[in-house]
């Protein structure tokens, strides 16, 4: 009995110390090659000095869930602790032959395709674990892609807040307005993860969303 009281006492003290410093699970979702890892890397690099994963021009570079825990973000005097979860790109088809044009052997391409399909399954499984999701889209691509709509639909159904990031605004073909028009009910922030462009607005939005959680 005395042990139980003591245990509860310490548990309460512990909880009070860390109250308000809860780690928010922030997931990066989207189709392949839109810059999810580049954005996660940029945030990690800015606040921890380390990167979360490798980036590449070849689609499906991220084939496993990658995460970085206890990333403390401070912006304009505000602070929060995040667990950044970078997910493999979600797609409805994977053809190993698509990788052959990147000078890969047939064996390597088949292996990559197999890992990519498993990565998609993993990404879907992790949807339930998120507190907040950043859906990363390529601002140069047509946003009316069913994968984007399906991801956002699932997050809404699970009542997980969604922030849409239109990445690659450094490219000429980028059109953030087209993404805003496709998803009028959501907040869209245009950024360039590669060059760190407009990340202030991104952090501002993240803090705003975290307040609502």
């Amino acid at each position, binding site marked *: 009995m005395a042990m139980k009281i003591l245990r509860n006492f310490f548990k309460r003290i512990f909880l009070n110390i860390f109250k308000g410093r809860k780690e928010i699970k922030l997931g990066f979702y989207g189709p392949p090659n839109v810059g999810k890892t580049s954005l996660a890397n940029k945030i990690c690099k800015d606040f921890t000095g380390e990167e979360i994963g490798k980036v590449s021009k070849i689609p499906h570079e991220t084939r496993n869930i990658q995460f970085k825990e206890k990333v403390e973000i401070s912006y304009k005097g505000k602070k929060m602790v995040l667990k950044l979860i970078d997910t493999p790109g979600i797609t*409805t088809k994977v053809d190993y032959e698509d990788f052959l044009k990147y000078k890969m052997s047939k064996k390597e391409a088949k292996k990559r395709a197999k890992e990519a399909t498993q990565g998609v399954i993993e990404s879907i499984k992790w949807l339930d674990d998120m507190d907040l999701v950043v859906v990363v889209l390529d601002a140069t691509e047509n946003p009316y892609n069913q994968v984007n709509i399906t991801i956002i639909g*699932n997050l809404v159904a699970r009542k997980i807040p969604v922030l849409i990031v239109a990445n690659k605004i450094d490219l000429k073909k980028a059109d953030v307005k087209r993404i805003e028009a496709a998803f009028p009910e959501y907040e869209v922030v245009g950024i360039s993860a590669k060059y760190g462009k407009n990340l202030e607005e991104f952090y501002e939005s993240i803090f705003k969303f975290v307040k609502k959680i």
Partner: protein
Amino acid sequence: MKKRGKFGKIKGFVIQFIPYSEIKDLDSNKRIRKILDIVLKNNIIILQGRLRPEEETRLIGDTMAMIGHVKNFKGIELAVISNNKELNIFSKLRKKIANFFSGGDLGAITIIGPATIVKEIKRNPKKIELMLNR
């Protein structure tokens, strides 16, 4: 059934229409199985209505699990066309009531095809284009 000519070119394919009443009373497992059975026969499905969001991801997940295990299967192309216009509160309520009584969003159309036949489904708010593989 899709037929290929002497030089591998597609000579024809089947588009199968599924009214919502055919899947309305099925649970998620049976709905997905029914769709995948048709897609694996290399047919294109035009489904009245749409799947639930969790069924759409389940379909994607099951499709991924089949790639590499089913010969020549490379996945699917999927598109849902529905009225995405911003609705006012009364229209939203009316739509919800209508969906409740009909058991789903019957104003939507879902197109699903095997990636070996359907190369891409291009869509924008005004039109939808089905690009086929040669």
